[in-house]
C-alpha cells in the first residue's frame, strides 16, 4: 500500500496541539483540530454547536494570534477545520494520521485511544505527543493492528521554530510506519528526527533537564548568581544567548519543574537521579507564582524606570527580591571572547582557573557522564543525543560534539582526578586508540558506536549535502577570504559566502564573477547558497554597509557607482548565463542578498525565509538590480495574451515592499509578495536546501535549460511618481513619514516606474539599471542618508530622520 497523509487530525488544541496543527497547515496538510466539549455548558448551550466547540475555537484563535507566528501564511488557517471530541469523533475515520496532544494524564489518554481504535480507518497512524508518559502504558489493551500503527511523535515548543522531532517506536510499531513518519517529519515538516526509546522524557528533555537541574544545584554550591550562570552558559559555550534561566522564564518554571519531577519519579535506577531534585528556591518560586514571562516575572523581571525606560532585574536568591545587575565578568569569558574558533572558546571556558570556569567544567563533566550512561537506555547512539540537544535546545553542538572539541583524553583524565566516575565505554574507546567521538573520512562523517566499539557512518538523507565536509575534502575549486566555490559533484558548483552575516563586499562580487567564469568553463550549473549556522541564520544580510560608508566618506562616488554596476552585472549573470543558476536562501536574505536571489533563474528557499529589500532603512534604494528585478519578476508571470491590465495594481505592492522595507516572515509570505515566483520552490528542511538546489539545477539541465531573454520591461512610467507623491503628501501630513522618507520614497517610485517614461511603455532593462544605480549614488550624497547609515552601523537600528 502507498502510505499518504491526505488529512491529519490533532486532538488537543492547547499551545502544542495548536502549534502542530499550524505547522501541518503551513506544510499544506489538511488538518482537523479537535478538543473536548466544555464541562460548564449552560442548559441552553448544550445543543449549541458553537458553544460546544468553544475550547477548540479558542485554540484556533490562539493559532491565528500566536507570536511568533505559528502559521507561515495567515491564510493557511483555512486548512484547519475544527470539531469537538463528542460530535465530530467519527470524522477521525477520514484521517491518515491522528496525533494526540491532550492533557498529560494516562487514564484520559488510554480512554481516548480506546475510542480512536473504534473509528480509525485501517492503516491510519496514531501517535502521542506526550513528553513523559510511557507509550506502553498508553496502548495497553489495544489491538495489535492499533499497536502496529502507534508511535510517539514528540514535538518541541514553539513547534514551527524548534527543529527537533523525537520519534518513539512502540513495541509493535511496523517498520514501514516508522520509516514513513520519519520521512514525513523530515521532508514535509522540516524536522530533525531523533530516534528515542520509550523511556521517561525521552532523549532531549532527559539529558537537557539533568543539565539544568544539576547546574542549579552546582550554582548554589559554587556560590554563583543567576546572571553569572546565564553568561557562562551562553554563546561562549555554543548555547543560545538567552542562557539557562532566561530560557526557563520563556518556557515557564512550572513546566520545567513538572518535567524534572516527572523524571525523578520515573527514573528510580538513575545513578544521577538526584540531579532532578530542583533546589528549594524553585519550590518557593512556584508557590509565589513567579513562573517566568507568563506571570511577568520569573528569574528575571522587566521593570520600568520613572522615565519609562525598560530595566531588567534579576531575582536575588537570598533576599528573594529583584535587583539590577551588571555585566558578568570572568577571566574565562574574556578569554573565550578573544578566541577565534569554537574549539578555542570551549577550552577557554572549561579549562580556566576562575570560579566561573570551575563551575562550567563541573556541570559539563557531569552531564557528559550522564549522557554517556544513557546509551543504550534512551537512544542507541551518541548521534541521537547530540541531535536532540542541538535541535531541541538551540545549541550549536551536542555534548559529544563538544567533548571532541575539549579533547576526550584530556577531559577523562581531569574527570578521574576530580573523582568523577568515567563510564567504562569511554575508557574502552580510548584504550582502543579511538580519540574522538566523530571523524570524517572521504566525505563521510562517522560516529563512535559504543555497542560495536567501532565507528559507523552517520546516516543522513541522501539529498543532504554538508558543505563543511566537502570543504574538508578539498572540494573548493576557487575562493577568497569571503567566499568559496565548492564542487557539489555532477558538474554543479556552490558559491558559498562566509563573511559575518554573509554581508556582500567587493571580494564577494569579484568572487562571483570568477565563479561564473569557472562554471561556464567547467560545470553545468551553479547553486548560490551556504550553511551559516544560527537561528534563523543569514543567507546574506546584504551589502557591507561599513565598506560603503567608508567609500562615501572618502568621496569615492565614481568608484561606488562602478562597483554597483559590477554588482548588477554579476547578479544578472545568474539570469542570462547559458547554465542554470539556483539561489538557495534561508533565514535573512536582505538587500543585496535578496537581489542575488531575484537575479537567479530559480529560487529554492527554506521555509523560514526573511527576505526583503530593506535599503530604505538606511536612506538608500536597492541599487544592485532590486528595484527593476522585483518589478520584472512580478510582471513576467502575466501571460502575453493579457494585453492590457492596470499596472498600478502591480506597482503598489512592489513600491510598498521597497519603500516600507518590508521583510517576509516566511518563504510562503515572500511568495505572496512576489519575491518568490510560481516556479520557485520552498523546502521545509534546511539541511536539505543545498541538496534540493543541486537537484533543481540538474533537473533544469535535464529539461533542456534555456536562459531568460533580455527584453525591455513594461513600466508604470510617470504615473508612478504621480501616484506616490499624492500618497506621500497624506502620509507626511498624518505624521507617518518624515520629509526625508518622502524624498527617498519618491526616488524609489521613479526607479521602479522606469523614470520619466510613458505609462505602459517599455524601457530597456539596462536603462532601468542605470537609473537605479545613479539614484543610489545620488542618495549616498545626501547628509541624511549618511546619518542613517552611521546610526545603523552604531546601533544596529534604523534612524528616522
Amino acid at each position: 500500500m502507498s502510505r499518504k497523509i491526505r488529512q491529519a487530525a490533532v486532538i488537543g488544541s492547547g499551545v502544542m496541539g495548536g502549534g502542530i496543527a499550524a505547522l501541518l497547515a503551513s506544510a499544506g496538510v489538511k488538518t482537523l483540530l479537535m478538543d473536548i466539549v466544555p464541562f460548564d455548558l449552560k442548559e441552553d448551550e448544550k445543543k449549541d454547536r458553537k458553544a460546544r466547540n468553544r475550547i477548540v475555537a479558542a485554540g484556533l484563535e490562539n493559532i491565528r494570534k500566536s507570536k511568533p507566528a505559528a502559521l507561515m501564511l495567515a491564510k493557511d488557517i483555512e486548512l484547519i477545520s475544527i470539531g469537538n471530541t463528542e460530535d465530530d469523533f467519527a470524522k477521525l475515520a477520514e484521517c491518515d494520521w491522528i496525533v494526540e496532544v491532550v492533557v498529560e494524564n494516562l487514564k484520559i489518554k488510554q480512554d481516548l485511544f480506546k475510542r480512536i481504535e473504534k473509528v480509525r480507518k485501517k492503516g491510519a497512524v496514531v501517535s502521542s505527543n506526550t513528553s513523559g508518559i510511557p507509550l506502553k502504558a498508553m496502548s495497553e489493551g489495544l489491538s495489535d493492528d492499533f499497536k502496529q500503527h502507534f508511535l510517539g511523535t514528540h514535538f518541541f515548543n514553539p513547534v514551527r521554530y524548534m527543529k527537533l522531532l523525537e520519534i518513539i517506536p512502540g513495541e509493535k510499531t511496523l517498520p514501514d510506519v516508522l520509516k514513513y513518519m520519519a520521512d514525513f517529519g523530515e521532508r514535509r515538516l522540516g524536522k530533525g528526527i531523533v530516534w528515542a526509546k520509550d523511556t521517561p522524557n525521552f532523549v532531549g528533555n532527559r539529558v537537557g533537564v539533568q543539565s539544568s537541574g544539576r547546574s542549579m544545584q552546582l550554582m548554589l554550591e559554587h556560590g554563583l548568581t543567576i546572571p553569572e550562570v546565564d553568561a557562562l552558559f551562553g554563546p561562549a559555550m555554543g548555547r543560545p544567548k538567552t542562557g539557562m534561566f532566561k530560557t526557563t522564564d520563556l518556557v515557564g518554571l512550572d513546566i520545567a519543574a513538572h518535567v524534572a519531577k516527572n523524571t525523578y519519579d520515573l527514573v528510580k535506577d538513575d545513578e544521577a537521579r538526584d540531579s532532578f531534585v530542583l533546589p528549594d528556591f524553585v519550590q518557593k518560586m512556584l508557590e509565589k507564582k513567579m513562573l517566568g514571562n507568563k506571570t511577568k516575572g520569573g528569574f528575571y523581571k522587566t521593570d520600568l524606570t520613572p522615565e519609562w525606560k525598560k530595566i531588567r532585574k534579576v531575582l536575588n536568591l537570598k533576599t528573594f527580591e529583584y535587583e539590577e545587575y551588571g555585566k558578568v565578568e570572568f577571566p574565562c569569558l574574556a578569554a573565550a571572547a578573544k578566541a577565534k574558533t569554537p574549539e578555542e572558546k570551549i577550552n577557554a571556558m572549561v579549562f580556566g582557573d576562575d570560579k566561573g570556569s570551575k563551575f562550567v567544567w563541573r556541570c559539563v563533566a557531569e552531564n557528559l557522564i550522564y549522557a554517556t550512561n544513557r546509551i543504550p537506555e534512551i537512544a542507541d547512539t551518541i548521534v541521537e543525543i547530540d541531535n536532540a540537544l542541538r535541535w531541541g535546545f538551540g545549541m550549536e553542538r551536542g555534548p559529544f560534539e563538544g567533548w571532541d572539541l575539549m579533547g576526550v583524553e584530556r577531559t577523562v583524565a581531569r574527570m578521574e582526578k576530580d573523582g568523577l566516575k568515567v563510564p567504562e565505554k569511554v575508557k574502552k574507546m580510548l584504550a582502543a586508540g579511538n580519540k574522538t567521538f566523530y571523524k570524517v573520512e572521504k566525505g563521510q562523517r562517522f560516529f563512535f558506536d559504543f555497542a560495536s566499539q567501532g565507528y559507523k557512518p552517520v546516516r543522513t538523507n541522501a539529498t543532504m549535502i554538508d558543505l563543511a565536509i566537502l570543504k574538508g575534502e578539498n572540494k573548493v575549486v576557487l575562493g577568497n577570504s569571503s567566499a568559496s566555490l565548492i564542487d557539489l559533484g555532477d558538474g554543479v558548483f556552490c558559491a558559498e559566502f562566509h563573511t559575518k552575516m554573509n554581508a556582500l563586499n567587493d571580494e564577494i562580487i569579484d568572487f562571483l564573477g570568477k565563479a561564473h567564469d569557472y562554471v561556464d568553463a567547467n560545470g553545468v550549473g551553479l547553486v548560490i547558497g551556504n550553511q551559516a549556522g544560527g537561528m534563523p541564520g543569514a543567507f546574506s544580510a546584504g551589502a557591507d554597509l561599513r565598506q560603503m560608508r567608508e567609500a562615501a566618506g572618502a568621496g569615492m562616488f565614481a568608484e561606488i557607482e562602478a562597483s554597483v554596476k559590477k554588482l548588477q552585472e554579476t547578479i544578472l549573470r545568474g539570469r542570462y548565463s547559458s547554465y542554470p543558476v539556483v539561489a538557495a536562501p534561508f533565514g535573512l536574505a536582505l538587500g543585496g542578498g535578496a537581489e542575488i536571489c531575484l537575479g537567479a533563474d530559480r529560487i529554492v528557499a527554506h521555509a523560514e525565509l526573511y527576505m526583503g529589500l530593506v535599503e530604505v532603512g538606511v536612506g538608500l534604494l536597492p541599487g544592485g538590480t532590486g528595484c527593476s528585478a522585483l518589478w520584472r519578476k512580478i510582471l513576467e508571470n502575466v501571460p502575453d495574451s493579457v494585453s492590457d491590465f492596470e499596472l498600478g495594481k502591480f506597482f503598489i505592492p512592489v513600491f510598498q515592499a521597497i519603500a516600507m522595507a518590508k521583510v517576509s516572515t516566511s518563504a510562503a509570505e515572500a511568495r505572496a509578495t512576489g519575491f518568490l515566483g510560481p516556479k520557485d520552490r520552498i523546502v521545509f528542511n534546511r539541511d536539505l536546501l543545498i541538496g534540493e538546489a543541486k537537484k533543481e539545477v540538474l533537473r533544469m539541465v535535464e529539461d533542456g535549460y534555456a536562459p531568460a531573454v533580455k527584453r525591455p520591461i513594461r513600466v508604470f512610467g510617470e504615473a508612478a511618481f504621480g501616484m506616490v507623491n499624492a500618497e506621500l503628501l497624506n502620509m507626511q501630513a498624518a505624521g507617518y513619514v518624515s520629509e526625508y522618507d518622502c524624498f527617498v520614497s519618491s526616488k524609489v517610485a521613479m526607479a521602479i516606474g522606469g523614470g520619466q517614461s510613458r505609462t505602459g511603455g517599455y524601457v530597456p532593462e539596462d536603462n532601468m539599471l542605470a537609473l537605479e544605480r545613479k539614484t543610489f549614488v545620488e542618495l549616498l550624497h545626501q547628509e541624511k542618508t549618511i546619518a542613517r547609515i552611521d546610526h545603523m552601523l552604531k546601533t544596529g537600528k534604523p534612524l528616522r530622520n
Partner: protein
Amino acid sequence: MKEAYIVSAVRTPGCKRAKGAFKDTLPLDLISFILKASVDKIKLDPNEIDDVMIGCAFPEAEQGLNIGRNAAKIAGFPDKVSGATVNRFCASGLEAIADAAMRIMSGWCDVTIGAGVESMTYVPMGGNLPRPYPDLEKKQIDLFISMGTTAENVAKRYNVTRQQQDEFAYQSQMKAANAQKKGLFTEIVPTPATKFVTQPDGTVKRETFIQSFDDGVRDDTTVEGLAKLRPAFSLTGSVTAGNSSQTTDGAAATVLMSAEKAKALGLKPLAKFKLFTTIGCRSDEMGVGPRYAIPKLLDKAGLKVEDIGVWEINEAFASQALYSMRELGIDKYLDRVNINGGAIALGHPLGCTGAKLAATLIANMQRTGAKYGVESMCIGGGMGAAALFELCD
C-alpha cells in the same frame, strides 16, 4: 424665464459600502429602480420626460458608459428619453438637479429628472485607476490630497476639537436613530437588493430582497465610545471613522417640470428649485466649501441665515461641517440643521448625495412647513455648492 418645480423626490436607503445591504447590487440597478420609482410615485407617463441628468462622482466601470442614458433605458423609459452623466464629485447629484432645472427654466425642456448614484462598493473612492498628475514640481499636488487629510487640516487650522466633533457625530446618530424609529424618512422607497445565495448543491444563485432602511445608523453610539476611536488619518489627529461620513451605496431621483406642465398634468409641485451656486476654495481644506457657497447663495437670493427653516449640510466630516456652521452663525439654529441626522449616520454615497439630500430636505420642509430650505456640501478638489428650495403651498 420659467420656473422649475420639483414634483417628486425619492431615494433608496443608504447602505454601508462592502458590508451593507447593497454590497451585491449593481449601481445601474439602484439608479434605474429609483428613476422608475420617482415617476411611478406621481403616475407620470415616462413619454413626458425630456432628459435625465445623473450625478456620479466616479463614472467608470459599473458606473461608466454613460450611466445616465443606460439607467433611463433600464428603468423602462422609452427610447426618446435621453440621459447624461454629470460629475462634480460630492455635489454631482445636486449638480444634476440644477442642470435638470436649468433646462426647464430656459425653456429647453418641460420635464426632466435630476438624480444621483454611487456604489462605493463597486467603484472605490478615487476610482479604479487613480492617476494623480505626475508633476515633478508637485505644484498642484494638493488637488490629489486625501479627503481625510483635508478634514484634519480644517480641524487643526480652525480649532475644531475632537470633543466637538464627537459630540456632533453623536447627535447625528441620535437624530437618525430617532427619525428611523418614528418613520420620518418618508422619502425612502423600499428598494430591491441583490444577494448571491449558495444553493444546497453548492452553486450560487442571484436573488433579490427588499431593503427599506439606512443600514449605517447606530443607535447605540455613545460619546465615550466615539472618544476611544483612533484618529484615522493622522497620528496626532482628531478625525476618526466615528466622526466622518460613512462610505455608502445609494441612489436618489427628483422629477422637475415647469409650472405649466405640472398644471397640465394635474400634478401638485412640492417645491420650487430657486437657485444654485458653486465656489472654489483651497484644495487642502476642501471641507470649508459650504462656508463660502452658502453666503454666496443667500446674497443672490437676498436672504439671511435666519430666513432658512431647514438645512441639509452634508456631514462629510464633523470638522468641516462644524467649522462652516460656526463661521456662518448657523450654529445658532442647530435645530434646523440635518434634523434627521446627516452623513455621519446615514452615509455619503458621493455622487448620489446631492440628490439624496434634496429628497430628504423636501420631505423635511413639507413636514416642518419651512418656507426655505438650503442644501450645501463641500467638494473634493476644493469647492462648495449650495442650492435654495422654496416650499410650495
